[in-house]
């Protein structure tokens, strides 16, 4: 389908332009202006992304809304963007989360507001760029550039240990990315001077280089997902990030890793993927089971949710390496749903943190007596996090379990333990924080959620329920693309 209007460029660059406009408002005397410009920018960013869904043709697996211009000739790098059924939902998710993040920091961020809001808008545009790049170098530029705003967000507005967390986040991700860069340069050489991702998909590569390429990609994407055992930056980064930062990190940035597997690892190195799938499944199951147990032991709410994110993302990588449509589609649904749920969970913790400035479970207790409305929302999201049927959390996990039972009963058995562990750690935390008698005088002084918080949580609650009850629009959009990917994946490239 040809689309003359450069819609994708608009989706990428509009938030960035607004972000720069927000930076220009300068110091905190103009904080009011900065907030409104960012809200306008983020909502506009969401509005321009809507045609991406309405004009999307779900019956084809080819790239849509393609734009292709020469960027620099010397290395044959092109500004080549386009979306398919895998990237389109992720772009929409990102555009959807951005206004929520702006809303989450509305009154909470009081220092250097313009830099905070501007960084989020710029990052939103960059992430859209990552999801829509069809040129490896363009992808790499966006991918690395997304580190810069996040590094600053964690480091400037984070908690006491923010510097450690920010630098750990940056260096971990950079290590993976640099190896990916080498893989790209190698592919550039073997493909005779092309950085086009679609060329790489068709490129025949012998087994040994395929395995090396797969490992280089794995390091880049595994750090971002994050998979066990390279997940340790995530709890640190989450705990220290401000609420908005945590939401973006969990809802969006972790998806970059998952997206990378679908766009690069699997189609470029299918034989290596099959060859190493046992290892990948093992790593994923360790994440699901072992990290689930670790989450149970956390005393810090944000750390608990961070570990639960690692466990849920373990489901995503598990789904990818089952090589059947239930697995891959389930993983995609899980990614989108995790975006909503983890975002909502971090917002809920943020609501409490803004009031008491503590994330320790032990500092709370009996919150329901003071904040009944909040308790109801938190209940819904906790249940969704545990994978209750009827919420979006259930759909993805169920599909992945279905996919794995086709392959091996024990995979499915281990994966299914998440329904128990997930329920255990989430609901136990919920019980300790919300129920019981009012634990201390601080809790006694709590006020229920404000209008702003109510709106944010309502929007997320609707999304979680909607995908839980009627996931068809989502699965329909990605179905053809994933089928095509699976066919491609099951034919050898040797």
């Amino acid at each position, binding site marked *: 389908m040809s689309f003359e209007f450069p819609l994708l460029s608009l989706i990428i660059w509009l938030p960035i332009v607004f972000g720069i406009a927000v930076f220009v408002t300068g110091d905190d005397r103009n904080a009011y202006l900065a907030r409104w410009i960012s809200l306008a920018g983020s909502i506009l960013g969401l509005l321009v992304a809507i045609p991406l869904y309405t004009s999307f043709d779900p019956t084809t697996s080819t790239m849509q809304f393609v734009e292709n211009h020469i960027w620099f000739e010397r290395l044959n790098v092109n500004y080549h963007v386009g979306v398919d059924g895998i990237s389109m939902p992720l772009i929409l998710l990102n555009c959807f989360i951005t206004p929520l993040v702006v809303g989450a920091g509305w009154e909470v961020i009081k220092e250097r507001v313009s830099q905070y809001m501007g960084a989020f808008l710029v990052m939103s545009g960059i992430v859209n760029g990552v999801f829509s790049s069809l040129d490896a170098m363009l992808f790499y530029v966006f991918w*690395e550039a997304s580190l810069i705003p996040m590094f600053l967000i964690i*480091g*400037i507005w984070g908690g006491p240990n923010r510097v450690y967390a920010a630098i750990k986040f940056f260096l971990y991700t950079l290590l993976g990315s640099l190896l990916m*860069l080498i893989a790209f340069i190698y592919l550039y050489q073997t493909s005779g001077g092309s950085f086009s991702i679609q060329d790489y998909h068709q490129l025949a590569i012998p087994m040994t280089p395929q395995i090396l390429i797969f490992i280089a990609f794995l390091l880049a994407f595994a750090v971002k997902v994050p998979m066990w055992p390279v997940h340790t930056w995530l709890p640190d980064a989450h705990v220290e990030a401000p609420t908005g930062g945590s939401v973006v990190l969990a809802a969006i940035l972790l998806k970059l890793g998952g997206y990378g597997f679908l766009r690069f690892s699997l189609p470029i190195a299918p034989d290596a993927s099959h060859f190493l799938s046992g290892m990948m499944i093992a790593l994923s199951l360790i994440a699901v089971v072992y990290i689930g147990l670790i989450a149970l032991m956390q005393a810090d709410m944000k750390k608990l949710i961070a570990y639960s994110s690692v466990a849920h993302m373990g489901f995503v990588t598990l789904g990818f390496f089952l090589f059947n449509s239930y697995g891959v589609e389930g993983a995609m649904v899980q990614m989108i749903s995790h975006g909503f749920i983890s975002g909502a969970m971090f917002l809920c913790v943020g609501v409490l943190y803004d009031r008491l400035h503590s994330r320790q479970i032990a500092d709370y207790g009996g919150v329901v007596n003071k904040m009944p409305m909040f308790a109801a929302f938190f209940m819904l999201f906790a249940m969704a996090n545990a994978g209750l049927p009827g919420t979006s959390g259930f759909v993805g996990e169920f599909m992945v379990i279905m996919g794995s039972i086709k392959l091996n009963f024990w995979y499915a058995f281990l994966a299914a333990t998440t329904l128990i562990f997930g329920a255990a750690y989430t609901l136990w935390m919920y019980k300790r924080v919300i129920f019981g008698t009012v634990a201390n005088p601080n809790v006694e002084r709590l006020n229920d959620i404000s209008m702003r918080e109510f709106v944010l949580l309502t929007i997320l609650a609707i999304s979680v329920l909607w995908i839980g009850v009627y996931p068809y629009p989502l699965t329909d959009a990605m179905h053809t693309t994933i089928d095509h990917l699976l066919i491609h994946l099951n034919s050898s490239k040797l």
Partner: protein
Amino acid sequence: MNFIPPDFAPASSEIFMLIMVCVVMLADLSAGENRRYVAYLLTQITLVGCTVLTFLSFSTETVHTFSGMFVDDSMADILKLMVYVTVSAVLIYSYVYISDRGMLKGEFFSLVLFATLGMMVMISASHFLTLYIGLELLSLSLYALVALRRDSIIATEAAMKFFVLGALASGFLLYGMSMVYGATGTLHISQLAQIIQSEASSKEVLVVGLVFIVAGISFKLSAAPFHMWAPDVYQGAPTAVTLFIGSAPKFAAFGFVMRLLIEGMGEMVGDWQGMLVILAVMSMAVGNIAAIAQSNIKRMLAYSTISHMGFLLLGFISADSNGYSSALFYVIAYVLMTLGTFAMIMLLCRTGFEAENIEDFKGLNKRNPWYAFITLLLMFSLAGIPPMIGFYAKLAVLQAVVNAGFIWLAVMAVLFSLIGAFYYLRIIKLMYFDDPETDEPIASNSEVKILLSANGFAVLALGIFPQALMGLSLYAIQNSM
């Protein structure tokens, strides 16, 4: 015997420069104590004049003159233009710094111009003697510049180290050149290539000579293990001089390597390739690892230079025009970043206060968000993060290295640049995450502000649109090979 005067036209900018150096010295003598800016203005005029002359004599083909001792080709012209722009920027950045510290004297400007002349001669040399004369003119001027504040003990010590080690390096180089002369019987670089190609010379002697020449080059480039002088000199020299040493001479060093190794001894690629691999890996390792331990910003940047020189050498390893142009692109990117970084350090200096420690960057974002942002761009660029120019410089070099089949070397290079990212991040951390120790506003005149903003912007803009600069580097190399 008829005397045929040589063709002076290709060397017009060098001749103009030489005349103007004398004019600057004389003018400064007669200008007196209160009109030191005369020398400054004349120096800038000289650089503009040289730019015009180089443009006028811009040659798309290779022209030899002075019995083949001097060459003018497009690589030489482009490198010289880069040198003029860089020196001019250095002077604008350092004006306030040197006038605050009593260095605003004719000697400073005439030494800078002499050094510039040395670079120009090096870039255009096609004979060992010309090359050596240019190199010594540059080096001697630099020794004197480092020692310009003769009442400063640390600067005098740095100058002494610089001189002794530099003289040793020149000795190495001369010895190597004499071996090569012994083996081939010529000092002309173009004839040298032919003789080596015809294999009419003793290979053993040539290789021994080559080893000494490579050692001499490494000294000048401050590549490990010949890097010892760099941290001391960078730290000891007044920051304005450090800025000068760290920027424009890198172009000359690039020209030096091109003339000597590539044009002269390109046939012996099999012999020098391995040496450069070792030098490159050692430089990246020493530079990046030692930089982490530094608390003095100038010392840290010296180690950072060492690591960048290692990366630069990688560009030569692939031994094709693709690799050389990547190396040239790398030099341009590096000089652009160095200029901005040292200019920032000088901005942080005040009368009676030297910004020396990385701690001096603390809380810059609260003192002046705009300069903090520019430094942020520079630091990410030095670390090689896209979309800054430093990334494309690294990319181009890595691509050339992989193209030549050294994938393991590319992996080493990225691992070391990962280590390197840490100490650049530390500067950003200090600027953005920490609170300032002083609330004193950062004073700057409008020229510096505009130039520094343009410099920071160029790091970003040339990163987003690297095509023109990459094309220029490729043109410079291809047209002269």
